[in-house]
């Protein structure tokens, strides 16, 4: 049987919400997005409302608190929807998944899409409170981020999954933003995830307590070690893309 490139979003609950705000956590630098969204959905008791399935996904299921779960799941609390991915996303899967997700966000009339990620810094070990940088395709979101303590990127280069989400959002006319916390390049970074959640608390109607995340940071790093190892391998493939010299 030939494998298909189709990516299917399965909604297991009715998603009747007007103009949702969507928060994405997909594994990349420091696993910042995955750790932040995972903590947010547990701490804020989000309801699981669906998952993503495809032949392109590796043969992995996730076990949390004795429950077998899909590795890419959708959550909801009020008008906030969250996408949590707990498997590495290689370039081909990333291209197709970002397109499918952005089409789904458009179908849901999303007010804002916020992608969470890490900005690798060599001296992360000497940084107590990682700074959060951001960019968006809309002026209104840039103002909203700046008012929440985000340092807006003046010049730079985004690559990988979130670059595709921004590109697809621009093509489909969606309001999309990327938040990047200073992070270890190749280690899981719960501290960076906590910084980004503090910013999200200011940006949207959230009240995520990051105390437990910081207290359990060492355990979180152990739990995410294998995913980080596989994500590092996946990112090395993306890094083969030549970045214009002016952005280096």
């Amino acid at each position, binding site marked *: 049987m030939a494998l298909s490139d189709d990516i299917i979003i399965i909604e297991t609950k009715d998603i009747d919400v007007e103009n949702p705000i969507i928060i994405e956590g997909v594994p990349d630098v420091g696993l910042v997005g995955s750790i932040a969204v995972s903590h947010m959905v547990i701490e804020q008791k989000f309801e699981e409302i669906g998952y993503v399935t495809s032949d392109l996904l590796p043969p992995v299921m996730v076990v949390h608190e004795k429950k077998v779960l899909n590795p890419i799941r959708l959550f909801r609390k009020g008008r906030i929807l969250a996408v949590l991915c707990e498997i590495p996303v*290689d370039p081909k899967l990333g291209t197709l998944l970002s397109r499918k997700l952005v089409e789904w966000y458009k179908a849901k009339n999303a007010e804002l899409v916020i992608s969470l990620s890490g900005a690798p810094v060599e001296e992360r070990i000497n940084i107590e409170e990682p700074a959060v940088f951001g960019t968006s395709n809309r002026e209104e979101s840039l103002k909203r981020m700046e008012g929440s303590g985000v340092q807006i990127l003046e010049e730079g280069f985004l690559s990988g999954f979130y670059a595709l989400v921004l590109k697809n959002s621009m093509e489909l006319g969606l309001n999309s933003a990327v938040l990047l916390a200073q992070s270890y*390049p190749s*280690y899981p970074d719960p501290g960076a995830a906590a910084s980004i959640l503090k910013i999200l608390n200011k940006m949207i109607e959230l009240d995520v307590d990051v105390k437990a995340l910081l207290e359990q940071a060492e355990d979180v790093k152990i739990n995410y*070690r294998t995913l980080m190892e596989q994500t590092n391998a996946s990112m090395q493939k993306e890094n083969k893309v030549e970045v214009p010299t002016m952005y280096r």
Partner: protein
Amino acid sequence: MIRRYYIIRDANNSPSKDYWHIDYCTANNVEPLIEYKETGEMLVATLDLPCVEKENIEVSSEEYCIRVCAPTTRGICFKKVINLPFATEPQNVAATFKKGVLVLEIPKKIKHFKVEIK
């Protein structure tokens, strides 16, 4: 016993040809995540060692090899053998441990000299 899972890819990186390799370790040993930064004078290796107490870390250095053993409070042990592509001065290898990260500064024995052009 810890099972470690890896995605192995074929030469064409085709996802459809991926398969899973399962490594059944007989001991609770895992390799830590590691980053390298090399200069003309030294190699700096940083190892992520969460749930490890500084007192329990063992680092031994040889001319062409550094060995790290760090038992965690979670029942697993981080083990790493760094084979060096250059000779070092084992007595001059420096190690610091901060925020769960071990930084090894491994000096190169070979010195670089500026050659004077006459």
